[in-house]
């Protein structure tokens, strides 16, 4: 493509650039350091923001939503057993869309009372064996776990147990709407008290065996009524395909993915990408001014040298290439150092930042109490590449300056 003479010219220019960089050690060291710290800091902050995003997504999905949830059409307006549907086993989506697991539940509002307090909760009938896909798997349980779908005891959250001033082995009264639409009151014994990553789950969720709950709610026309089926895929990206397929398989049901179930989380997850870009450009534009300033100074300082090169026959194009090369060279070295610094800082954080001191405000953002940075190769490449691009852009001004230098100008200095 290029003639060998052109390549050797480029090699010579590269040599020039390298020497120029090395020549001003002190100034360029500070420039490197500025770039490295900026890129490193951006990498770390982006990793934290990305970690927050991933965490929120996981929290949203591992709540009771899953990637995809199936419900009866009227359930959103009237969450009761009148809007239940019949159990759907087996669920199959073919080999292209591998499923991690699914859980069928009854999830209806209820009121729970102890001797001293009364609270509104979501009473969820589950088969504990299928709940490996939800937050249920992360529970630390005091007392006993539910024995199975036929277990007619309750599993309540730590926060709720404290509010109700009750504990494992005690009885509480649950009021819920039965299959006939009439309210049903019943005494339940507490099998266990769970600790969940988020306090809101501890306050709001009460679990009992699915079959026991079906029996307690009375008969519907359905043999095994459930109010929701939530499905977790192996790859989140498959959810569009899975959603279409499930909607085709079960036209009588409403099939929603987690973005529709939890639009606020979806919005924030999208917003995070924009935040990262804005953050990056803020830091980079500040850096660009420094870079431009330094390079212009370098060029001005070398007026006589550049003028001599022109006089010796170096054309404008080669001069341009040389200045850009110098600029990009500084940027590349700085960015690589910065990325390494950022990666080191991320690993230095290790298990993440413990935010439990601010747990309430943190949970308002749908996060768990440990913020764990997440590094992705895409992010590193994207920001590394963009930084170099910024370097090219920044070299425009000094290069323009350099092009204006003529041998005559150099001689008049």
């Amino acid at each position, binding site marked *: 493509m290029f003639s060998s003479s052109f390549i050797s010219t480029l090699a010579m220019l590269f040599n020039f650039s390298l020497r120029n960089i090395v020549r001003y050690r002190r100034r360029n060291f500070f420039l490197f350091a500025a770039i490295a710290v900026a890129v490193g800091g951006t990498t770390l902050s982006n990793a934290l923001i990305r970690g927050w995003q991933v965490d929120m997504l996981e929290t949203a999905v591992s709540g009771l939503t899953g990637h995809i949830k199936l419900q009866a059409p009227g359930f959103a307006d009237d969450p009761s057993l009148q809007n239940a549907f019949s159990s759907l086993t087996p669920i199959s989506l073919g080999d292209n869309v591998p499923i991690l697991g699914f859980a069928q539940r009854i999830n209806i509002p209820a*009121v729970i*009372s*102890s*001797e*001293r307090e*009364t609270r*509104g909760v979501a009473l969820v009938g589950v088969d504990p064996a299928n709940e490996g896909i939800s937050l249920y798997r992360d529970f630390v349980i005091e007392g006993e776990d539910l024995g199975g779908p036929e277990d007619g005891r309750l599993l309540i959250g730590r926060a709720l147990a404290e509010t109700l001033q*009750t504990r494992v082995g*005690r*009885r*509480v*009264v*649950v*009021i819920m709407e039965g299959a006939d639409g009439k*309210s049903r*009151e*019943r*005494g*339940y*014994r507490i099998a266990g008290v769970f600790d969940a990553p988020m306090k809101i789950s501890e306050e709001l969720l009460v679990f009992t065996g699915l079959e026991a709950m079906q029996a307690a709610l009375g008969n519907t026309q359905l043999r095994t009524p459930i109010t929701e089926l939530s499905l977790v895929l192996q790859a989140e990206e498959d959810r569009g395909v899975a959603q279409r397929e499930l909607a085709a398989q079960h036209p009588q049901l409403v099939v929603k993915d987690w973005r529709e179930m939890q639009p606020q989380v979806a919005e924030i997850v999208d917003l995070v990408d924009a935040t990262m870009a804005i953050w990056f450009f803020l830091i980079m534009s500040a850096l660009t001014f420094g870079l431009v300033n330094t390079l212009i100074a370098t060029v001005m300082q070398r007026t006589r040298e550049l003028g001599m090169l022109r006089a010796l026959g170096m054309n404008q194009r080669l001069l341009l290439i040389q200045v850009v090369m110098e600029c990009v060279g500084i940027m590349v070295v700085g960015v690589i150092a910065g990325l390494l610094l950022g990666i080191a800082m991320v690993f230095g954080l290790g298990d993440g930042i413990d935010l439990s001191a601010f747990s309430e405000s943190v949970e308002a953002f749908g996060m768990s109490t440990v913020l764990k940075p997440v590094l992705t190769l895409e992010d590193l490449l994207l920001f590394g590449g963009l930084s170099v691009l910024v370097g090219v852009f920044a070299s425009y001004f000094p290069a323009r300056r350099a092009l204006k230098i003529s041998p005559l100008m150099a001689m008049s200095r």
Partner: protein
Amino acid sequence: MAISTRLISPALQCLTQVARRVVLLNLALLSMLCSTHASEKIDVVALVTGSIDQTRGLSSYAEMSMLIKRPSWQRQSTLKAWTRGREDALIRFVAPTRVAGNALLKQGERMWTYTPKLNKSIRLPGGMMSQSWAGSDFSYNDMSRSDKWLRDYTLNHVDTEQDEGLAVYVIDATPREDAAVVWGKEQLRIREDLVLLELTYFDQDMEPVRRMVSLAIGELGGRAMATRMRMQEVDKPEQYTELEYLDMDFDVDVPDRMFTLFSLQSGRSR
């Protein structure tokens, strides 16, 4: 009068007049037995239902005053109440003017409240039943239960005491396993003339939580009954609610329309 027990003791059940006499007869026989035999032989179910029925007729009308006492304030109000059978009741505040017209209607297990200021009747949802009624120490639950007493509890006679020369039976009512009752147990003290002297609610550690005590016993409408009762939480001795019967009639003729939503809102006091 009927409303009293309905108001105050959860789950008091109504029997007919005839049944009441049978129970009285039984108890008379039983108390004779008691003097010779171990006191555990008494028929607790008959005793409890008899006690309930003592303050209740086929229908009733009562006037009463309620005193709500709190550490920093107290409030006295006057109410009228009508009952019919075991299911229906209407309670209406008549004084002071600020609360007059506020009313509560009970039809079986269902209850409505009416507030004249809002001109609206509200059906009480299940979740609100354990909350305070009209700011007092009574809950809606205390007033709504009708036949739960015998359905949801196991009754045991645990002790016999003496009061003014009459035997007082102490009865533990333990809720059945899946009963919709939060208490560990409830303990009743019923005098042999069927006056309920005390009702204590225990939590599941068997610590007393709430207690209703009869402060005065007299005769109203031709029956011996507690005429003044105090309900309070055990750990808050400085606040309580007292209910005093001023007048009461049993087996009066209450029109059917009394126990309707229309009547609840009309604010008519007889």
